[in-house]
């Protein structure tokens, strides 16, 4: 399904500020996989997602989705098949456009945008039912600009937009981190429901280790631009939050030793 081969991203290559953000990362996701990604700040999690989405070019390596090589494909071309959510709820919607217009825009993903009405009567009914399933009362505010919504509401809308046309791959970049705990939980449950309903292959970054182990079927641990380990099956079931914390600690120990030795 998704194949990342030896993906490397180097920032400021050839200068004193050279930084390898992604270091020969290889990763395979099967259709229907829901993988969570954890790791400390600067581990390369977001870089990995950006590289897959196409907003960051690879320095070397290859990315294929369903056998199609996407390495050189432009971001807007890739997004025909990829849905993406960011941590910042402001990033996912167009604030001056109404809820239904935002959905209308997302609904034409992957199609040629024509002079057809952006939100037809039929779309309107479809969006109404879709919004109703969120249980947030948004279906009664379809003509409200998205900029008037709260962070949680906007993130829920963004989630609908990313999945209204079922994507081949869904990328979630800490999409609940900016929300209060209760809203975060609601959005997480909604995410789970949609992913299961549509069997969407998903890659989700999170700082919440509990979530990383509770949701999905694989957990990827990253550090310093590399994948340390991919947990799945029995090994993952036995893994506890404590184990992961211990793993982090040992990694940090290595890091600080290196820092002291100046290497």
């Amino acid at each position, binding site marked *: 399904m998704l194949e990342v081969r030896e993906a490397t991203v180097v920032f400021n290559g050839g200068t004193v500020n050279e930084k390898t953000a992604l270091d020969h990362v290889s990763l395979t996701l099967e259709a229907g996989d829901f993988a969570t990604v954890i790791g400390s700040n600067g581990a390369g999690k977001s870089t990995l997602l950006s590289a897959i*989405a196409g*907003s960051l070019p690879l320095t070397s390596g290859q990315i294929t989705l369903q056998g199609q090589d996407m390495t050189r494909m*432009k*971001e*807007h*071309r890739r*997004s*025909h098949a990829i*849905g*993406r959510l960011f941590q910042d709820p*402001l*990033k*996912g*919607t*167009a*604030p*001056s*456009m109404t809820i239904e*217009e*935002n959905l*209308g*825009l*997302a609904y*034409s*993903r*992957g*199609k040629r*945008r*024509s*002079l*057809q*009405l*952006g*939100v037809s009567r039929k779309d309107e009914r479809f969006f109404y039912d879709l919004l109703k399933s969120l249980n947030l009362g948004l279906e009664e505010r379809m003509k409200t600009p998205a900029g008037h919504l709260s962070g949680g509401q906007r993130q829920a809308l963004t989630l609908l*937009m990313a999945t209204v046309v079922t994507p081949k791959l869904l990328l979630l970049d800490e999409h609940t981190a900016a929300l209060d705990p209760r809203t975060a939980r609601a959005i997480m449950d909604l995410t789970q429901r949609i992913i299961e309903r549509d069997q969407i292959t998903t890659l989700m970054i999170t700082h919440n280790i509990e979530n990383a182990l509770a949701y999905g079927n694989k957990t990827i641990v990253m550090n310093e631009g590399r994948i340390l380990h991919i947990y799945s099956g029995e090994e993952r079931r036995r893994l506890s939050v404590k184990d992961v914390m211990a793993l982090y600690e040992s990694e940090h120990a290595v890091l600080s030793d290196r820092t002291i030795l100046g290497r």
Partner: protein
Amino acid sequence: MSLDTVLSTLQLGLVYSVLGLGLFLSFRILNTPDLTVDGSFVTGMAISAVLTLAGHPILGLAAAFAGGLGAGSVTGLLHTRLKIQPILAGILTMTALYSVNLRIMGGKPNLSLYKKETLFSLFQGKAVQTPTLLLFLIVVLLAALLTLFLKTQLGLSLRATGDNEEMVRASSINTDSMKILGLALANGFVALSGGLLAQQQQFADNNGGLGMLVLGLASIIIGETLFGKGGLAHHLSSVCAGTIVYRFVLTFALSLGLAASDLKLFSSALVVLALAVPQMQGRLKRRRKRHA
């Protein structure tokens, strides 16, 4: 103010409303101050005048619109393909257009359409009696078409590009194409406005575009302040109404003794004032909070 003055002011207001609609596209929808306008307005004037002289006033307006599309596309290409800052891209096109416009006008700095068949003389004595009504219908039609267009799939993509570019790329839309399309359409409207003006005043002038961006911005800001933004149709109506109000303000200022040569200073000052007021209000509020 005599009835004649009122009518001619209204007509000018309607002609410039078309310019306002174009600037609304670039300034409000795409969030780009596009200086191409000062050149493309004259391009529209020149094309319209030359074809009117040749006896094709209506074709002249259509060609003016097309000329504006071309000018806007050039700015769009400079900005997206060559990564030139939008303001500089606009200035480059505007400067180049100065020469192009002179060529269109056959090297003459101005053209007179006196006693030539224009759009307005064509309809004289027919169902639509006065030029004012004719212009009013044109503006209503254009505003309605623009509103409708902005609600199509393509229109939504265009609006989202100015609103949240990052999200748009993540929704499989090519933002570069959208910017080119937006700038092209915006300048199409601007050139059409110039084309209408040439036929209305029976005169085309190679320097007639100076300050058109500022004039259009002033109209948009006045319209929004006086009549609000609301939905799309409301917003566009406000822009047109603002343009007409602004024309009346200018006429009034002139009748009070403002020298015609000071108009541009007056317009600029007005825009600065309109842009400064929200800033000042914010600062006042903060100060009050601090003292409270």
